[in-house]
């Protein structure tokens, strides 16, 4: 049995910390933290390479096997990339609705997980609301435990 005072104190503490950050993030403007280098030769074609993590830039870059160099990729803000790719007639997706394009294409895997949650919830509801044993077994007493 925890007193009301303790609960209120904990609530206040968490809400204070959360409120503090929410208030702080309010006027940050463009994403900070890492300098965005927009003047890159982005989207180079590479003859023979593979996608690798570049530890220096913290992004996926292309390792060019023929020249043994790392080719850095476009690194603007996530959302600008989405919008400009959707607008671009030569882009991969071409959708009027950028949100749907993100939901089903750029981040389609998230949507698979989301559909899976719904599927799991339906299965869970049907598991919960059911008779655990077939009728004839129930008369015998079924599993006792």
């Amino acid at each position, binding site marked *: *049995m*925890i007193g009301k005072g*303790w*609960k209120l104190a*904990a*609530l206040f*503490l*968490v809400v204070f*910390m*959360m409120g*503090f*950050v929410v208030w*702080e*993030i309010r006027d*940050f403007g463009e*994403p*900070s*933290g*890492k300098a965005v280098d927009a003047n890159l030769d*982005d989207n180079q074609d*590479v*003859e023979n*390479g593979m*996608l*690798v*993590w570049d530890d*220096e*830039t*913290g*992004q*996926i870059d*292309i390792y060019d096997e023929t020249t043994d160099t790392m080719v850095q*990729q476009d690194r603007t803000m*996530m*959302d600008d*990339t*989405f919008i400009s*790719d959707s607008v671009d007639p030569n882009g991969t997706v071409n959708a009027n609705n950028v949100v749907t394009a993100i939901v089903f294409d*750029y*981040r389609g*895997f*998230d949507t*698979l*997980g989301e559909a899976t*949650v719904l*599927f799991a*919830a339906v*299965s*869970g509801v049907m*598991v*919960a609301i*059911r*008779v*655990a*044993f077939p009728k004839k*077994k129930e008369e015998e007493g*079924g*599993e*006792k*435990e």
Partner: protein
Amino acid sequence: MSFYNDLITHAPAIIIAIPLLFAFATPLIGKINKYVRNAWAFTAVLLSGALAYVLAWEVFKNGGDPNVYVFGGADGTAFDVLSNVRISFYVDGMAAFMGIIMATVAFAAVIYSFSFVKKYTGQDKYYTLILLVLAASFGMVFTGDVFNLFVWFEVSSVAICGLIAFRSNRGESFEGAAKYLIYSTIAGLFLLFAIGLLYGQYGHLNIKYLSSAIGANGSMMVLDKIVLGILITVFSLKAGAVPMHMATPDGYSEAPAPVTAMMVTASQAGLYAVFRTCFTLYGGNIQNSLAQIDLVHAAGYLLVILGVLSMFVGVTLALVQKDIKRLMAYHAISQTGYMLLGVGVGLAVFASGDNTDFAEFGRTAMTGGIFHIFNHALYKGLLFLTAGAIIFKAGTRDLNKMGGLGRDMKMTALFFIIGALSIAGIPPTNGFASKFLIYESVFKFNPVLGAVAMLVSLLTLASFVKVFYAAFMGPKNPEMKTGEVPKSMLVGMAVLAGMIVVFSLLPSLVIGEIVSPAVTSLAGPGPEIGTSLTMFSGQGAWNPLVLLAVLGVTLVIGYVIRMLGQKGTVPKGEGKKPYLFGNPTEVNGMPFVVPASNVYWGFTRALKRYYKPMEKMHSGLINEYVFWFVATAGLVMLALTFL
């Protein structure tokens, strides 16, 4: 070999697509008949297990170099521009290590389920949800994207709660499920909030990008610190660390046994996320930022505190339980403490900026902690399965009402002994091998912590002695069913027991081949611990084969002495003497019963002042459980912000 290469390239996607695909189709397949459905589920776990091992083999072969997979990327020479912002899977040594744990336990659990849930209705849904739990665990460990992590976190908790409610004839299972769901949902919402903060600040969701951006300009913002606090709290709730463990025993004890074994691995995915947060997200460029060192150092101490609390509280509460599965659930909490302690010590030393210390014992502590994850999944899974077998036969979960099961269930008793020795850390088991590394390195870090770790092992052994005696020995309750459990349950247990035996005999090889790449992918390369059959921790050495040889010689000598001694058996009647727990006996002419659940009554009486508040703390009220989570989250945030 082209097919094999394609398979390896796409393995991270296929490995999660297989359980999902099979789970989605299970309701359709279930319409045919139950044998096809069982074969279907078996195929799913077999395929995804095999693929997990193949993938891990490829990753370990490269010394833990990551296998990166970008969802939705185009193939061919012109690479997709968007690969930086799409969801990606990042399968490095640690993720592959976790993947094989999930696959192994799921394999055993599904085989075990064939007989275990035979009498119930709704088995289609059962196998569906089992496969979804497996997929969610894979997703949580492989993903390289924070929001994706949240999605799989939720899939995991929803699917698990559906399974906890599987025994819908019991009202208690709904109580456990509801508590577990409320707890994990609130944690999930905190996680969502933290992800929103990260996104708002850095404009990206990719873990590797965030890791390079956090603290890149030389100082940590308050936002980073608070996000770290939320992430640690949420994921250690998933892992079941004290004081946010409240709903864990409820869920563990009410779920069907194979599900509980899966829940252990699912909670280890939470543990993995804690380590990922500390090492990859925040420790990513620890070399170039002083601010990061302080923060991650504090996080290391935080993990150590959580670990010690979990170890001690878990084991002391397990000692007084009378419900066999609840007892084991508290042990699961206690063992999670070892992993948090080991890796926490590693993290604290890693972030102290003292490389010699890290090479000397920090890395050993991490190796021990991470090796313990695998061992824990194996023996805890095995123990939960044996508990399920006991309940299956005894028809009760109350230790006071069991007894004498060892006469019929010899194989189950053997498996139980293997698991119990391993969890208690008795040489020459694998549990000892990992605990040995933890003891030695933690003792070097702080002698008191090492002593606590030893003590907890001792209490673990004590409580498993109690379970073994209460369940398997003594006179038999005539109401119980006779005979061994069905074959499929034995096979399921044998899979895990066999792996424990292998791990016990060759700990050094396992560390060298599997654990070291995992440690390397978290904390960078370092000296090897297991290179030959003997394991060198820096302070000591351990070779189970030598010990087994010594034990064998001793056994032979003992046998010879016995042969030389007096012939004959124990006089008739002596073997039927009443045992103490559960059976009425006489003390000074008065009937007297010490129930099995209370056999350590002296201990609990002596620690009355500790157990009273503990009992109050575990009040069963979900309000107060949420209070503990909120208070811990607040304190952790406060500590990380202002220390």
